[in-house]
């Protein structure tokens, strides 16, 4: 076995070890189980899709609908390239830049880089799906099988080149903190884009001529044959010169991809490094800290820190204002949102209820992991001569504040337009406040039972632990059931004021319970300091 092969095996072994080590969760069995369930689900999903690709290819060939194969090739190509960005981090990997530090020749480094690309989960899934596609070709049209095998192998290698190019770019971005954070925001926007387009599309469909030109779509389809997946398709199903041209085009893509990757790898191999820029400033300007009326100094100070943290984290801010974006996009233009708004009072009250529900669910992103952004700084809370209850209270105010503000805005808009009656608005508002109180109270406990370090530079880093996410169901479900029962009773007995009275009573009961939860959380922290600190530093 030569040196490069040994290094490759070693690399694969290290990746395997990293994966196994990532499963280690001292005292975190629930997390491990949730992670295990997630992995099994992902595997089942990939296998189901493999069966789907096989069936779709078989059907497409049987019915001479080759465009379906084109769609499949595009889908595989996109998943292979973009899933890497989105799931990077779920698969503990190696920063490939580090490999250049070892005595590896450039040729060896380049080969290792390419082969390493095959160990990516998206690459494994993509290869499996292409294999299923080839098996279907073999079953349905055996005479195409040898050619299809060659084409698909070239397509796999091309995908690996592209994948490694993207991974290289990601590593380059991630070499600076700012780059990492900007990247995470861009990726979040990519993830949110389909939903926003879908909402916006509902409006556009109603506005004649507003949809992007259909002809542009057709032009794109015509250009498809010149794209890598299109070329791969024509190289399999085309005939005569078309097939030859497509095969040559695909090989051309492969060579160009390989050369660009070579240039990129060479740059990294030669040790080009980026780091956060150092910028000197002269004057020290220390503004006075905040003093928030009605709050004591400690709570004001902690609140200031928390709001500064939120303001600096674009990704979290985006998550906070997302319900407002949905509200704005859905109810702008001439779509169903507008028609919904223009309808009767009761449906507008329903809308207020929906937004209140959305907001009270969204707050979980922040309040179920109160210390997630503190990381090392968690120790600072323990060193300071302050009661943990005050710290938690300030965090709760900071987390609930933006949501209360958004709700006030929405409710105000609907009230101003006489869309909802004061009774309906009061009922929804008190219910909203109750749910928010329950959420932050339960969130305090979840935050210390299942603390999780939030890495804003990694798209895959969730803002709350998976266990806390599931535990949330235990909070939301009873609240929802109770609300539903009260609403049904009110309708059945024709007592429109009943929900408001019931919500007020529950709110009054929730306040002391919140403070009980606050005390319990503080006691729990006191008894599990190192456990929490360890989890936050993972």
């Amino acid at each position, binding site marked *: 076995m030569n040196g490069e092969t040994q290094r490759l095996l070693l690399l694969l072994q290290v990746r395997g070890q990293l994966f196994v080590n990532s499963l280690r969760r001292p005292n975190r069995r629930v997390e491990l189980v949730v992670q295990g369930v997630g992995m099994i689900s992902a595997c089942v999903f990939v296998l189901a899709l493999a069966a789907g690709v096989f069936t779709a290819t078989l059907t497409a060939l049987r019915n001479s609908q080759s465009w379906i194969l084109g769609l499949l090739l595009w889908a595989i190509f996109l998943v292979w390239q973009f899933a890497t960005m989105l799931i990077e981090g779920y698969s503990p990997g190696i920063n490939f830049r580090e490999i250049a530090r070892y005595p590896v020749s450039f040729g060896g480094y380049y080969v290792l880089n390419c082969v390493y690309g095959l160990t990516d989960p998206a690459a494994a899934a993509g290869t499996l799906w292409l294999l299923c596609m080839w098996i279907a070709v073999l079953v349905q049209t055996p005479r195409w099988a040898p050619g299809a095998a060659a084409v698909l192998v070239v397509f796999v290698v091309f995908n690996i080149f592209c994948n490694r190019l993207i991974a290289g770019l990601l590593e380059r971005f991630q070499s600076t*903190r700012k780059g990492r954070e900007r990247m995470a925001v861009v990726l979040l926007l990519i993830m949110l884009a389909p939903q926003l387009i879908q909402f916006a599309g509902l409006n556009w469909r109603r506005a004649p001529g507003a949809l992007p030109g259909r002809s542009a779509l057709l032009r794109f389809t015509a250009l498809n044959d010149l794209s890598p997946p299109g070329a791969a398709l024509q190289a399999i199903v085309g005939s005569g010169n078309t097939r030859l041209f497509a095969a040559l085009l695909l090989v051309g893509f492969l060579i160009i991809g390989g050369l660009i990757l070579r240039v990129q790898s060479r740059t990294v191999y030669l040790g080009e490094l980026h780091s*956060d820029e150092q*910028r*000197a*400033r*002269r*004057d*020290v*300007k*220390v*503004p*006075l*800290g905040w*003093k928030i009326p009605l709050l004591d*100094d*400690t709570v004001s*100070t*902690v609140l*200031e*820190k928390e709001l*500064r*943290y939120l303001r*600096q*984290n674009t990704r979290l801010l985006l998550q906070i204002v997302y319900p407002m974006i949905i509200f704005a996009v859905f109810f702008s233009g001439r779509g169903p949102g507008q028609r919904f708004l223009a309808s009767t009072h009761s449906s507008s009250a329903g809308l207020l209820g929906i937004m209140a529900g959305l907001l009270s669910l969204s707050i979980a992103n922040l309040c179920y992991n109160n210390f997630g*952004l*503190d*990381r*090392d*700084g*968690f*120790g*600072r809370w*323990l*060193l*300071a*001569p*302050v*009661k943990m209850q005050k710290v938690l209270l300030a965090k709760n105010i900071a987390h609930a504040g933006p949501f209360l503000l958004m709700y006030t805005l929405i409710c105000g808009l609907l009230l101003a337009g006489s869309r909802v009656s004061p009774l309906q608005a009061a009922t929804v508002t008190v219910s909203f406040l109750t749910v928010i109180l329950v959420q932050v109270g339960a969130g305090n406990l979840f935050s210390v039972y299942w603390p999780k370090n939030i890495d804003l530079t990694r798209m895959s880093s969730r803002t709350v632990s998976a266990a806390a996410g599931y535990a949330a169901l235990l909070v939301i479900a009873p609240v929802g059931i109770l609300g539903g029962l009260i609403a049904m009773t009110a309708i059945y007995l024709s007592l429109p004021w009943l929900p408001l009275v019931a919500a007020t009573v529950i709110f009054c009961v929730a306040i002391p319970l919140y403070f009980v939860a606050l005390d319990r959380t503080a006691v729990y922290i*006191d*008894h599990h*300091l*190192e456990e929490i600190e360890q989890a936050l*530093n993972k």
Partner: protein
Amino acid sequence: MAEPVIETKALRRTFGSFTAVNDLDLVVERRQFYGFLGPNGAGKSTTIRMLTGLLRSTSGSIRVLGRDLETDSLEVKRRIGVVPEGLALFERLTGAQLLNFCGRMYGLDRTMAAQRTTELLEFMNLADSSDKLVADYSHGMKKKMALAAAVIHGPEILFLDEPFEGVDAIASTTLKRLLQRFISRGGTVFLTSHVLEVVERLCSHIGIIQNGKLVASGSLDELRAGVKIEGHDHSPLTLEEIFLQVVGGARQSEEEVLSWL
């Protein structure tokens, strides 16, 4: 005897079956510059974490400034300053914001917190970086920031866990200046460090811990008097020689190990 400001009795901390600190009896008096030494894993950081309220003890008692840490922890915390092992900094605040925040958490009013922040940033040579996020600071700058955060409220005792680790000579000089000034004004320093030369130069008293037990304690002269090394000439023993003798680290001759190197 001067007033003891740190006192532990039969202090013990276990992690499962492992005993990190084993019946530790420790006395540190006011104005002492106490160096707490020990090999890796001896129990230094565990001890300092217990003394500062970052870790609960399994058994035993801790009195700091005459108060029981268990029952009067807020008052103790108000009067001590700590540079913990991980520095415990909120790295997404700027240097100025962080110091201001720490000052106010210790009860300083807004004006005083801002004023002391300015002074400390100047003293620590961090003024040019005061509006940069702490996350973007170098390791040495973070250490200086942690020390500034520990002293901003004017504590009576400073607990420092490896303050000189990974710090360049310039930053190290700044830290030493600050500590000497602190001692000269009546403060007490409890410090752990692996840099024995620094401990020898700065500390008035030294304690050596091994396997969770205090195996030697006293001034450097007292330690010298208590340690005898066979074949040693009449020059005074260095702290390194005393340390190696006490913890038994100089057992293997160089020829015995790493013969291939």
